[in-house]
């Protein structure tokens, strides 16, 4: 029989391969650069969605503030790119050359201290991981150690999202304000704007996404994944099995925060700007719906959910802008009322059984949907 030390079982492996073929072969071959670019933008949200599967689906911790971490990662990356774009030669028409244009417009004459380290790419990459993880740790430690969870936690994270947005918009001399950081040009001298650069970045992003998917999968298959499931169900009982519930929650929340931040950094690279409109309450809760549509217990489902909702959003708001909000609102309600396990649930309940029937397999339900947490079965 199967051994739990193995990272994926066969159906899961097939699911991952299918996604890889879709993202690496089919989409790049069939879509033009503009559309592929859109996919790249959507995939940056998929990082957040995958993190939410661990944090919300498995850990039962609903964070309505993932935009905060997406934003922190994105702004860290954008600060580096902005500094590179604001070299003294590029900005010699400013009253103070060598600082970002929005600072000049806001009568700031010297680069603020917290901007200075972002001249270094190494520091930036570390900051993209460490800054959000640190924030998540502080919020998580303060809340979970005092046993605040559920709806309270959701509201607090939402308030944090609101605070950060207002702060970014209000401090435009340091952050670029409501317009955000625009006109990002090069990464270590390599121009990120032309089509071929976008394609290279796309493949880099897909590689990172699969990295996150494998990490998430590893967490899910480890005993920690099972503890999260146990905790979601009976938090108190887990304490009496000798585990510190708070530490596990903090860990899940930090992992989700780091994934979101990587997504944000990718966004800044891929789309070429970063603004507070990806930080606040509305984008944060939209990121939750991606996961909900995909299936809150399915890592791969979260990726498909993100792509689908965003495709729907783009095509709807191109043709019927008024209908989109009705559609999105309806989607929230429908997913919660009728399909709590999202696309993955639909797949494992309706599609997988038929496939199994066709293939005449005897194996019980264990699709790429992760509904059967139970299948970390012991070897006999």
């Amino acid at each position, binding site marked *: 029989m199967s051994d739990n030390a193995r990272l994926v079982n066969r159906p899961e492996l097939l699911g991952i391969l299918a996604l890889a073929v879709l993202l690496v072969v089919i989409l790049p071959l069939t879509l033009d650069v503009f559309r592929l670019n859109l996919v790249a933008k959507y995939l940056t949200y998929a990082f957040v969605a995958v993190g939410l599967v661990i944090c919300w689906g498995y850990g039962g911790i609903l964070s309505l503030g993932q935009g905060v971490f997406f934003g922190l990662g994105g702004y860290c990356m954008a600060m580096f790119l902005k500094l590179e774009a604001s070299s003294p030669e590029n900005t010699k028409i400013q009253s103070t050359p060598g600082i970002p244009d929005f600072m000049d417009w806001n009568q700031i004459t010297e680069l603020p201290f917290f901007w200075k380290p972002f001249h270094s790419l190494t520091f930036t990459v570390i900051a993209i991981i460490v800054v959000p993880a640190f924030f998540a740790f502080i919020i998580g430690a303060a809340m979970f150690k005092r046993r605040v969870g559920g709806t309270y936690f959701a509201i607090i994270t939402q308030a944090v999202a609101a605070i950060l947005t207002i702060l970014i918009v209000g401090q435009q001399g340091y952050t670029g304000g409501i317009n955000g950081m625009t006109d990002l040009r090069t990464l270590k001298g390599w121009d990120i704007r032309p089509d071929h650069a976008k394609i290279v970045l796309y493949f880099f992003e897909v590689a990172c996404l699969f990295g996150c998917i494998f990490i998430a999968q590893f967490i899910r298959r480890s*005993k920690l994944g099972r503890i999260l499931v*146990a905790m979601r169900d009976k938090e108190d009982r*887990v*304490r*009496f099995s000798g*585990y*510190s*519930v708070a530490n596990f929650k903090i860990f899940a929340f930090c992992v989700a925060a780091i994934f979101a931040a990587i997504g944000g950094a990718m966004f800044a690279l891929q789309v070429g700007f970063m603004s507070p409109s990806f930080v606040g309450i509305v984008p944060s809760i939209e990121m939750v719906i991606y996961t909900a549509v995909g299936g809150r217990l399915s890592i791969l489902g979260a990726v498909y959910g993100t792509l689908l909702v965003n495709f729907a959003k783009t095509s709807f708001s191109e043709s019927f802008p008024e209908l989109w909000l009705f559609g999105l609102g309806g989607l929230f309600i429908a997913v919660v009322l009728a399909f709590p396990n999202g696309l993955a649930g639909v797949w494992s309940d309706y599609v997988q059984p038929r496939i199994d029937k066709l293939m005449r397999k005897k194996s019980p339900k264990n699709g790429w949907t992760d509904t059967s947490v*139970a299948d970390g079965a012991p070897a006999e």
Partner: protein
Amino acid sequence: MLIGHQPKDFLLAVEGLTVSFDGFKAVNDLSFYVEENEIRVIIGPNGAGKTTVLDLICGKTKATSGAIHFRDKDLTKMKENQIVQAGVGRKFQTPSIYDDLTVFENLEISFPRGRSVFGALTFKRDAVVRDRVEEVAEMIFLKDRLNMSAELLSHGQKQWLEIGMLLIQDPDLLMLDEPVAGMSVSERVKTAELLNTIIKNRSVLVIEHDMKFVEDIAHKVTVLHQGQILSEGTMEKVKNDPKVIEVYLGH
């Protein structure tokens, strides 16, 4: 540190324990001592504070005043999971297991290894774990149900599973809250048998109403009434105590 406070051979020393909920003292200045390998049964009428005493020892409820010493540790200052790690196990009144996991996973989670975040992340289901889980599963009559979702077990089987989870935890002090409540007659017999094997080589604190069962296993009985000790001693002594007969056994 505070070893001077207690004779060495007590495993558990509860001293002056009081807890009040909005002025109502559920446990009032309670003191008792449990020795190594002693089996102590707590009996008493409903609302006497029996379950609250267990809640206080395992950290579920915080004491208003008083001390609980387990070996050289003061449990009143520790968190639930630290108390478990120190060697105190608790079975709840209603079966409390993880419905979304299989029987195997329920037992595995209780295996005392990899309890930190990174320990859990790097935990390997090796031969030691598997053998132990299977051994325990055999004892709790669930060997052929290892891969079944715990949700699907019967009430009695869930009770056994929880006992199994405690067993695999291998605590030095085992606390059982009405372990045979809600069981069928045949399940009761099997459970009594099971309990008799698992209470060996450790101290046990049991709450139970079934007097026959109490007589069978108890080394010493403590009778609680309104948060205080009414009587304490051997079953024989307690049974003949007029105060006990009046408030409890007489009914």
